[in-house]
């Protein structure tokens, strides 16, 4: 679509689009980079924001410096820019918004005597109270979450502007006050049937489609999944996240996932590629308006949120103008220290949580997670 729009002003231009799953894209990059041969890479690639730092560290020569691009970087949130930057240089044009939302089933809440307003601007401890009540009255879970690859704990800590690494990027799990609070709340919610902990993504989806979950908290791309369950149309509403209790920097906003475009070092016409990205993803609200209804891809490009298309009510979400809301939420997300070791940290902490819920002493479990992450960070 971007190609068609660009071709209007640039005759003879065409884009050859190859769709590959995100995991395969990254495997391909790793393989090419290790072979030292980028010739099979396409010109432009969309990559998960959470993976950027890892690849910028490992394969700096795979990316093209975008400093000379004609684009106003401040049209994107600071956090979004930071994902694809290294040492102050831009290597990616932010595209897919990962701003988090909390989605709730209004019919289930109603049955338990609550509304979405009761879940707006609240803390996690209040969330837990309501969650226990909801589970007692309806047998449903107010939140569903994945055990091994789960992002809930990451969204919790990052909503406080913190992470599992310190300012120097060193592992910071044991003794991390903010982190410990998140772990406490999360583990307690699992033990009290507020959170349904599932083993994998299929089960996660089936708790939603099967109606077992009364709530979902994730990056806004989850709306695409929700909207595929036609029978739940009009029953969902969105609001902001609960915030962590007793932390000064805590907010009701976080980011999870999202992606940015990078130009590979195999690109033969860097100028054209840069111009293409700048004229479409980097500056065109018409473009974003055009792709939203068809793809549900919410922009990181802040001016896009002001357009009428973004403000149209969405029937699935009880006529809320969810896309404008999401863009608005994104502007409140606190920045935090990102790390190339994002997935290692997530795995270590999730492992600790499974162990804590299983009865291991909290301090011991977090110490182990700390040493696991420290180990991964050494060579």
């Amino acid at each position, binding site marked *: 679509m971007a190609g068609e729009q660009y071709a209007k002003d640039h005759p003879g231009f065409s884009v050859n689009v190859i769709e590959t799953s995100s995991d395969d894209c990254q495997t391909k990059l*790793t393989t090419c980079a*290790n072979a030292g041969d980028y010739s099979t890479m396409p010109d432009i690639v969309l990559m998960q924001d959470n993976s950027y730092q890892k690849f910028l*560290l*490992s394969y700096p020569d795979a990316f093209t410096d975008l400093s000379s691009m004609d684009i106003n970087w401040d049209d994107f949130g600071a956090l979004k820019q930071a994902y694809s930057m290294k040492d102050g240089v831009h290597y990616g044009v932010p595209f897919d918004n990962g701003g988090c939302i909390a989605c709730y089933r209004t019919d289930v809440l109603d049955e338990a005597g609550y509304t979405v307003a009761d879940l707006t601007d609240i803390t996690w401890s209040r969330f837990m109270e309501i969650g226990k009540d909801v589970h007692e009255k309806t047998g449903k879970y107010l939140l569903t979450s994945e*055990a091994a*690859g789960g992002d809930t704990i990451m969204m919790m800590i990052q909503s406080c502007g913190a992470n599992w690494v310190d300012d120097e990027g060193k592992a910071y799990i044991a003794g991390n006050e903010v982190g410990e609070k998140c772990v406490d709340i999360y583990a307690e919610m699992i033990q009290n049937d507020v959170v349904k902990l599932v083993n994998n993504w299929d*089960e996660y989806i089936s708790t939603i489609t099967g109606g077992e979950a009364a709530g979902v908290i994730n990056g806004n791309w989850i709306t695409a999944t929700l909207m595929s369950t036609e029978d739940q149309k009009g029953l969902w509403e969105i609001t902001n996240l609960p915030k962590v209790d007793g932390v000064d920097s805590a907010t009701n906003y976080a980011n999870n996932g999202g992606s940015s475009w990078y130009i590979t070092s195999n690109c033969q016409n860097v100028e054209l590629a840069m111009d293409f990205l700048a004229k479409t993803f980097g500056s065109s609200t018409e473009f974003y308006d055009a792709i939203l209804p068809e793809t549900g891809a919410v922009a990181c490009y802040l001016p896009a949120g002001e357009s009428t298309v973004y403000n149209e009510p969405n029937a699935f979400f009880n006529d809320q103008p969810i896309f404008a809301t999401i863009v608005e939420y994104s502007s409140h997300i606190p920045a935090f220290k990102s790390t190339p070791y994002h997935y290692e940290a997530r795995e270590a902490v999730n492992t600790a949580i*499974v162990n804590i819920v299983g009865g291991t002493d909290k301090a011991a479990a977090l110490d182990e997670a700390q040493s696991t992450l420290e180990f991964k960070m050494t060579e």
Partner: protein
Amino acid sequence: MDAKKKGMTLLAKQRAAGWAFLTPAALMIAIMSFYPMVRAFMISLQKGTGANMQFTGFSNYQRILADKVFQQSIGNTFLYLIIQVPIMLVLAILLAQLLNNRDLKLRGLFRTCVFLPCATSLVSYALIFRSLFATDGLINSVLMKLHILDQGYNFLGNALSAKIVIIIALIWRWTGYNMVFYLAALQNIEYSVYEAAKIDGANGWKTFWGITVPLLKPTIIMTFIMSINGTLQLFDESVNLTKGGPANTTITMSHYIYNTCFINVPNFGYASAMSFLVFIMVAVLAFINLKVGDTRD
């Protein structure tokens, strides 16, 4: 004199022909197998993330000693090996013995049925087992219908049951495969040997231990080595069935090595070192197996 003039004797000609036949295959093996092995060993002596590698000596091998998750994965893999391989091979021999019976009707059909699981792809069968054993999967529904369980049991969410599910899956997938080897070997045993045993008054059990097992020994050793090799490199089941979880209690060595390269910050030096360790384990176990199995004087 004549022969010398022509350049080659008959023997030399035959030798040359032999070499000509051997060379292409030998070259292919050298390029496709041995070269990567040597290269992997070289990489295992380097450290660094991604493309920034430098020589480091044996520090990657030392690193293994400090890696608790990898040690856990070794433990998991050997647990699968110790429990699954014997069960599977015994089952395979028994099935082969049953299906070798000349009087059995529909032998072909039964053989096909037992072998059929091998035709499924590793990924798809792992995914099917995952949905079978899900909290709202078929197994749980049946157990709940029979009032054995009140609510769905989280098979894949508990360390012990998740391991058992993997072992069951492996037995389902590979028993038929091994059975085929035994069937082939059984058919090579002369029927007259059994008849002679019968005349001498040996019962079924005695015949099995006295004739079948000794004559199957080469095949048993081969399937043992193949199974050990396969189990130590177990990957698909860990990745697709349990994702190595809960909390790394079912992760296998190959799965962890893959994570080190493609999920985490890429560390190919360390991953190569771990792969080499797996290679050495397979070699040592296969060697022991051959020595134990070899009873020639």
